[in-house]
């Protein structure tokens, strides 16, 4: 099909044809077209089906407020539903499909809903699907969801990348129409840092859509010249295709830049969209205004559109929606449309001006039939407008044949962003619309049509004035910019919200199928508050957020209640201003990049060994090191754990938090944060410690090593490294600022390996430099010291054991960590040294009965953990008093105990609840298993857990209930120290 509705002129690159498809049919357009303008040029008026009744719908607007022309853009994984054809920039090869119809757009079987419109009124769902209650989820809702809805998802992963970023400016100008351009020029020429953002791909706003002059130059050329100047200013950032979505606290704005939506697919590495956070010291809203519909019978016929949109299509895109057009207006504005289309050779069959005063001399701008004091009472043509019926001032009716009708019910300033910080717009009788209220987001001003100033001259001047005021507020220089000469016509409106005549439906909200009758029904049924009206009728709840419909609905409600529109009020405006893809909100934080990953010093070596890794917080740790022939992880873990018990193993424990504590009061400080005593810990010694929260619950455990009188190194669990550091800083800065103590994390600075097993000392002795005696006598259990290894490299050695074996932890500067691991493997070969991962580490510590994060779960006290005696009564420490509060440590409370599977082999699932074997089905849980493992050393399944009165129940058999997996097992209560309860091994 050729472009039968293409006119002369326009702002298109006609030298280059673009081919695109809509519902599989091929069309052509030009660069500069939107999908909507190109479809109209090709004579396509039917672009979609409505949400509820599946009514045929055509394009209504020429901007982001579009409620009707929603399409599925692109195909495959890039298919995006609910894309507004009015802002979809045409590119070669564009593919769009209509949505919410079956089998085709022209014949939609679900259009049958329209036949039951008398039933499907406002509140239909609420009234109808009440009974039987159980039917809702399984029966009603699936059917309704199938019948309703808009576009569909491809169900494939989004292949595109999205970015985010942060911008700062003195002045953010939102909207690049006449006010925005004048403001940006003013601020830019004065040297301020300016961001000018506009959602369009061509800056200029309405200047690109009107036939008027600025300083004697066609308006769109003046805009282009202004943009060209702004592009030369290094302090001005122009952001095309960028929608400012929301105004947030303290001058912060969200803006979505569509980087690659105007091409078939982003180039490699190119983000499709970028979500910017803009910090603006001042902002200026120049978002223009949105035209509104007058509701009349069948005013949703494809071909009925806003008069301003009809004019924009003609002037900017050289398109008419039909060869015969009419205009229905209650302002002078509609006459501009008639004038411009007539000038382009389109047959204007009439202007129906509801104002009786509109005469050929007072209102008409050209030689076209004018029906003053008349109204459109009906529209004909199911799939496309064929004509309108009008009621003339003398009471007679007449049908005007036309394929398009431009409607101008007045303009609504785009106040949305002024309300995002709880501002409320105020009613302005003069323009019959809401304008921004006095309470604006911090630093915001409003200019141009957004402020209710509708002439171009007013827009330009207000932009200049507001920019100067903003700069003055920032104490920046402001030189006055002469205001260009421009159109300064008055805005004469006689409000008309809907045409009373006719029993057919008069549409207010096109996207959610809300009619005048629905609003009246809501009133009749008591839903009179605007918030109730919105929820009951769904007025303004669709993807367009009612940009073209809300005020009409409010006006109808005001009439029904006998209140003014101002008294009726508005619903809240909330971000985002237009829909945002979820991918844009995620940015690059998707998939494995959702969070950063921390690698251990031995990571690359472990990869070489074929280690299997596991996430531990942000860390990636070696979980186990499978060897050839091992077919199950248990084989590997059993081997690793036994190797430690038998000879020696090495495990990377760098992930444990390390906090350097220095200062004159370092010992006193630790004495305060740990429940047990640290003041008298000798230099060269480590001590196991328990930290309590203020409420007496155990927070973390670890060791502190005293390297000097005024120098300790505290270790924390991996999981609590951050929280413990934060806690200690809080104590230092807020609770004991008088103490001389300094903290800093050294977690990453040192590669630290546990060397555990009967041969641990022999292995280390091969690395430790002569002069450092690490014999049992010279370096006993819980010793620590700074040494050198491997020929002079500084290292720290701690004789601490998590496994219960003779064990050390050795630390070197991290850059040497990889080499140290390799050296340990080489030198340990004679002892059959074995690297072990977190799984074996867990097995070993469960065998030894050491608590870790599973046990320190924020609900357990030192007493519960069997460490009650560690809470010193001889000193004050954080949490000590509340740890002794009534009830917390009652004898009948839980205690950490060991558990052995009664049959030895069956796995005891961690998380299972514990019951006495005599308990009935209704019996209360008496505890839970917190950690479980198969102990290769003991040859049985074991677990740690908390059991009420556990200390008195040694030997008792309890029921281990795992209802999630339908298990009920038996276990025997034993000591949590499964191996070497006397600690002989670790002191060997």
């Amino acid at each position, binding site marked *: 099909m050729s472009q039968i509705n293409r006119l002369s002129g326009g702002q298109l690159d006609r030298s280059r044809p673009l081919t695109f498809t809509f519902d599989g049919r091929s069309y052509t357009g030009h660069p500069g077209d939107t999908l909507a303008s190109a479809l109209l040029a090709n004579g396509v008026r039917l672009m979609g089906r409505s949400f509820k009744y599946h009514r045929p719908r055509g394009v209504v607007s020429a901007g982001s407020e579009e409620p009707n022309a929603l399409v599925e853009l692109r195909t495959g994984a890039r298919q995006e539903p609910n894309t507004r054809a009015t802002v979809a920039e045409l590119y070669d090869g564009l593919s769009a499909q209509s949505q919410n119809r079956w089998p085709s757009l022209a014949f939609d079987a679900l259009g049958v809903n329209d036949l039951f419109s008398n039933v499907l009124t406002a509140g239909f769902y609420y009234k109808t699907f009440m009974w039987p209650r159980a039917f809702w989820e399984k029966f009603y809702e699936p059917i309704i969801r199938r019948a309703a809805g808009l576009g569909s998802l491809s169900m494939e992963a989004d292949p595109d990348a999205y970015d985010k970023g942060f911008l700062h400016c003195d002045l953010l100008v939102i909207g690049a129409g006449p006010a925005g351009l004048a403001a940006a020029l003013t601020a830019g020429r004065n040297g301020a840092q300016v961001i000018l953002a506009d959602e369009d791909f061509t800056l200029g706003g309405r200047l690109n859509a009107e036939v008027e002059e600025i300083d004697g130059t066609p308006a769109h050329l003046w805009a282009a010249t202004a943009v060209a100047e702004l592009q030369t200013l290094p302090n001005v950032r122009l952001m095309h295709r960028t929608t400012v979505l929301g105004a947030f606290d303290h001058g912060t704005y969200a803006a979505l830049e569509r980087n690659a939506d105007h091409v078939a697919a982003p180039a490699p590495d190119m983000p499709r969209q970028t979500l910017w956070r803009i910090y603006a010291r001042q902002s200026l809203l120049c978002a223009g205004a949105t035209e509104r519909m007058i509701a009349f019978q069948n005013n949703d016929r494809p071909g009925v559109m806003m008069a301003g949109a009809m004019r924009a299509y003609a002037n900017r895109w050289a398109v008419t929606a039909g060869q015969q057009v009419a205009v229905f207006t209650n302002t002078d504005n509609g006459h501009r449309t008639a004038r411009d289309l007539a000038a382009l050779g389109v047959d204007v069959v009439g202007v129906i001006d509801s104002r009786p005063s509109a005469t050929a001399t007072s209102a008409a701008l050209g030689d076209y039939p004018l029906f003053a004091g008349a109204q459109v009472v009906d529209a004909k043509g199911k799939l496309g407008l064929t004509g309108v019926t009008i009621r003339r001032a003398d009471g007679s009716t007449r049908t005007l044949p036309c394929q398009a009708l431009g409607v101008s019910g007045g303009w609504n300033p785009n106040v949305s962003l002024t309300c995002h910080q709880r501002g409320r717009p105020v009613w302005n009788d003069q323009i019959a619309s809401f304008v921004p209220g006095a309470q604006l987001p911090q630093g915001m001003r409003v200019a141009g049509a957004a402020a209710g100033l509708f002439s171009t001259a007013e827009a330009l001047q207000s932009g200049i004035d507001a920019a100067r005021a903003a700069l003055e507020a920032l104490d920046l220089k402001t030189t006055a910019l002469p205001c260009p000469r421009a159109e300064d016509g008055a805005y004469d409106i006689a409000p008309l919200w809907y045409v009373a005549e006719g029993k057919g439906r008069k549409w207010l909200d096109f996207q959610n199928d809300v009619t005048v009758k629905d609003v009246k029904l809501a009133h009749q049924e008591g839903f009179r508050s605007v918030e109730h009206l919105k929820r009951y009728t769904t007025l303004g709840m669709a993807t367009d957020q009612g940009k073209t419909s809300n005020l009409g609905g409010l006006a109808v409600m005001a009439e029904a209640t006998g209140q003014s529109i101002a008294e009726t009020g508005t619903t809240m405006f909330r971000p985002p201003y237009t829909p945002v893809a979820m991918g844009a909100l995620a940015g690059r934080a998707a998939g494995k990049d959702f969070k950063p990953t921390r690698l251990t010093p031995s990571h690359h070596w472990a990869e070489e060994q074929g280690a299997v890794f596991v996430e531990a917080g942000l860390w990636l740790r070696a979980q186990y090191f499978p060897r050839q022939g091992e077919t199950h992880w248990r084989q590997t873990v059993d081997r690793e754990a036994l190797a430690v018990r038998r000879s020696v193993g090495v495990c990377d424990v760098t992930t444990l938090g390390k906090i350097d504590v220095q200062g004159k009061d370092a010992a006193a400080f630790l004495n305060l944060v740990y429940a047990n005593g640290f003041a008298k810990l000798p230099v060269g010694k480590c001590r196991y410690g328990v930290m309590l929260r203020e409420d007496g619950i155990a927070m973390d455990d670890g060791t502190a090593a005293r390297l000097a009188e005024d120098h300790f190194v505290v270790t924390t669990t991996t999981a609590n490294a951050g929280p413990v550091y934060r806690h200690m800083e809080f104590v230092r800065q807020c609770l004991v600022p008088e103490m001389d103590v300094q903290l800093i994390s050294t*977690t990453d600075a040192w590669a630290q390996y546990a060397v555990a097993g009967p041969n641990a000392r022999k292995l280390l002795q091969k690395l430790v430099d002569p002069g450092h005696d690490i014999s049992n006598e010279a370096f006993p259990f819980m010793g620590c010291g700074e040494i050198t290894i491997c020929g002079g490299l500084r290292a720290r050695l701690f004789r601490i054991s998590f496994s219960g074996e003779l064990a050390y932890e050795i630390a070197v500067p991290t850059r040497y960590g990889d080499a140290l691991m390799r050296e340990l493997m080489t030198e340990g070969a004679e002892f059959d040294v074995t690297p072990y991962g977190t799984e074996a580490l867990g097995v070993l510590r469960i065998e030894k009965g050491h608590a870790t994060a599973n046990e320190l779960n924020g609900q357990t006290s030192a007493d519960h953990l069997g460490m009650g005696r560690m809470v010193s009564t001889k000193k004050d420490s954080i949490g000590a008093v509340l740890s002794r509060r009534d009830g917390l440590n009652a004898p009948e409370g839980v205690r950490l105990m060991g558990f052995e599977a009664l049959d030895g082999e069956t796995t005891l699932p961690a998380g299972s609840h514990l019951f006495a074997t005599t308990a009935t089905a209704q019996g209360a849980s008496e505890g839970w298993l917190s950690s479980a493992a198969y102990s290769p050393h003991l040859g049985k399944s074991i677990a740690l857990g908390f059991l009420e009165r556990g200390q008195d129940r040694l030997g008792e058999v309890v029921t281990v209930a795992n209802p999630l997996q339908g298990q009920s097992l038996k276990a025997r209560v034993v000591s949590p120290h499964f191996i070497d309860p006397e600690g002989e091994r670790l002191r060997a």
Partner: protein
Amino acid sequence: MPDQSPAPRLIARTAFGADHPCVETIGPWTLTECPNRAIASVAARQGHEDAVAATLATLASGPVDLGTLRRGPSVDVFGTALQQWFVTADHTEQEHLARTLADDLGMTASVTEQNDGWVVFTLQGDGVIRVLERLVMTDLRALSNGSAQRLLLEHMNVFLLCREQDQAYDILVARSFALSLHHAVTAAMRSVAALSTMS
């Protein structure tokens, strides 16, 4: 004589497990890992704040306030928090920087070795703010030469040091995050480079 460990049997590796620093050039920008930096943190002890600041000012050839970076003849110093600084130097020459500083400052300050606590990257090239503005929320045009800020970069805690505005910056990140930081920065570099090709 360089102040370094005597020919250890253990070979130092970069944060990427490599023998050589990671260098990535995309478009006009280059991200370079700089493993040859010794780093020490210095925190003044109570009552010695002025003395420590004076000592560091001598090393840095001028006072080093919070949020500033100053380059001395043999060390760089930047303020990291109230009465806290990082001192950096050539690792080959001053591997034991922390020990030296501790000896010099005595009981007036707490000094901690951070040589391998942090990885230093340099990001440089014309118009590099276009890359950084996708990564950090600070006002980069207000971050003048010699500024130092502690920031979040893709959830990672970093120091950003402005060597030359819009041309050269140092980014310090905890060593274990090196790969993720590299990924985040190079992704932004690729992003902006790709966008530059868009007409």
